[in-house]
């Protein structure tokens, strides 16, 4: 009797989630796959005649460059967030007293919309912005610097936005690592650097890989930062896809681009599973 009740409760809780995934994830995704093999009508409507031209079109050097740039931007974002994030997480854990405050500071930006935070960067970096104002005042530059609307500005925005996604899994895996391993390495004669290199890094690899994936995949597709901070000078996949849907009215091509992007992400997740192997279900997050 009790068991039956449990089952009803279970279905009641899980049911809506199935419903959600089916109607808001699975079906739209299948629809995207479907229209990616269709054609665009002259008026921007979808013409239901099968074709693979949406995919072959991507071989154009213009689109290859967009993919390439996106991957480069995402890679640099990942490397920088890892480079800053690892020491950050490492020392946040070492100074136990302020661990909580430091992590709150990392989490706090989540309470504000990331779009608004990106506007914040525009206020700082624009030609008439705060940073230029300060630089002019103290006389470091004579002319205001053009910082906005460049790859550099996009990078700053990306790194800033993605930083917490890197720090959280790193923090978790460093925090969980048994400190006895570090003591053992030191005991066996390893210097701080050697201990870090041969023990800490390999043992926190799940966190490193998780952080890299959590940063890399959204970075490839993120469009509003490159839109707002890169302007017309920067075109990434996210922007391209957005344009197909909202401006060019070429939904089939937009859909095809999305599918390629999703496949790219899947490949990365497979690489991740390969590296972490069967440890996937343990202690990554």
């Amino acid at each position, binding site marked *: 009797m009790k068991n039956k009740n449990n089952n009803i409760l279970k279905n009641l809780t899980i049911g809506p989630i199935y419903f959600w995934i089916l109607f808001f994830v699975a079906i739209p995704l299948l629809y995207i796959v479907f229209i990616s093999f269709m054609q665009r009508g002259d008026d921007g409507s979808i013409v239901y005649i099968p074709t693979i031209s949406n995919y072959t079109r991507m071989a154009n050097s213009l689109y290859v460059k967009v993919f390439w740039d996106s991957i480069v931007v995402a890679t640099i974002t990942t490397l920088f967030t890892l480079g800053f994030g690892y020491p950050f997480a490492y020392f946040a854990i070492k100074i136990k007293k302020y661990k909580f405050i430091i992590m709150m500071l990392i989490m706090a930006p989540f309470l504000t919309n990331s779009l608004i935070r990106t506007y914040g960067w525009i206020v700082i970096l624009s030609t008439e912005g705060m940073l230029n104002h300060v630089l002019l005042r103290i006389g470091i530059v004579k002319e205001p610097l053009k910082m906005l609307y460049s790859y550099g500005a996009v990078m700053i925005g990306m790194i800033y936005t993605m930083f917490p996604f890197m720090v959280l899994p790193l923090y978790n895996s460093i925090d969980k690592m048994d400190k006895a391993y570090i003591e053992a390495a*030191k005991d066996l004669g390893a210097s701080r650097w050697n201990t870090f290199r041969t023990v800490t890094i*390999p043992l926190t690899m799940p966190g490193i890989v998780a952080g890299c994936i959590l940063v890399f995949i959204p970075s490839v597709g993120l469009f509003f930062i490159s839109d707002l901070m890169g302007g017309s000078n920067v075109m990434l996949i996210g922007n391209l896809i957005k344009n197909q849907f909202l401006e060019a009215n070429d939904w089939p091509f937009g859909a095809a681009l999305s599918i390629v992007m999703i496949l790219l992400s899947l490949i990365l997740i497979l690489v991740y599973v390969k590296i972490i192997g069967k440890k996937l279900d343990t202690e990554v997050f």
Partner: protein
Amino acid sequence: MSEVILEMDNIIKKFENQEVIKNISIKVNKGEFLTLLGPSGCGKTTTLRIIAGFENPTSGSVLLEGIHVENKQPNERNVNTVFQNYALFPHMNVFENISYGLKIRKVNKLEIKKRVIEMLSLVQLEGYEKRKIEGLSGGQKQRVAIGRALINNPKILLLDEPLGALDLKLRKQMQIELKRLQKKLQITFVYVTHDQEEALNMSDRIAVMNEGIIEQIGSPQDIYERPKTKFVAGFIGESNLIKTNIKKIDEEKVSFEFGEYEMNVNYKNYDNLKNRETYILIRPENIKYTSSKPRYGLRSTIKEHSYIGSIIKTTVELESGQEIIVCDYDKKKKLIGIGSEVWVYFEPEDVVIVEEGD
């Protein structure tokens, strides 16, 4: 006179105002098997960690072969540790774990290989090079941990309750192996345990610790047969402690009160008795009871007999209400019924006078 390899002088260690080690001074001889024995929280592991270099003493000095090391990093001291839960690197196999110390010192590959093979045979793990740590049993992990430490030829091997995670049978077997290994290699072992049997079985000397001090250092025989304090007497083996008053101390003997009698024990063991009111210790195997009045003895009542395999343990109650345990190896003897009046007695030479302790 044997050579001193480690000397700790007036070590004090505080953690956030809590004094974990109150004042410890100890000398360890080369090739010795020294055990730090005590209940949890007595400071024995902290003492070991100070020797290893994981903790710096708040004050006091640590000399390794006469050189001050108290402020040196663990990697700058030639001592190695076998950790309580082994702390074997899970991302390395057996070979990589054992060779870690040599690789860090950039020993050449052929030499590493040769020494690891030798070490594997020493710890009886031939053929296990490629094994993953995950798949090893507790005893095998233990051997890898010992091999990983010993391959660096440490001046001292520190062992932090290394057998704690093993089952009883394996623990006994490893005790024998460890002792054999230590004898063979002539390496100084400093061993931490709370298991008195382990300590008695393996050590050359035992330092009994309690609440941050060393209560007594001595050979297993000393510790067991001539404990100096009530704590040591109670911690090692079973003991009957009877309150007494010291009547007289002179050159040859100590006279103390025992019921209506006055008894004497040899003086030389009790050089600095602080209090006149103290305790006498009689081990259960040295105490006897009889139904006919002996030359001297204390009146008591039989409370309980219990059969524990090789011995019969009898609890008797003295007139003062204190319970005394008597062990009898002669199981064929007819037991005296519960509630009967008896006299307990013992030989004066089996009595040890112990102090209250600090």
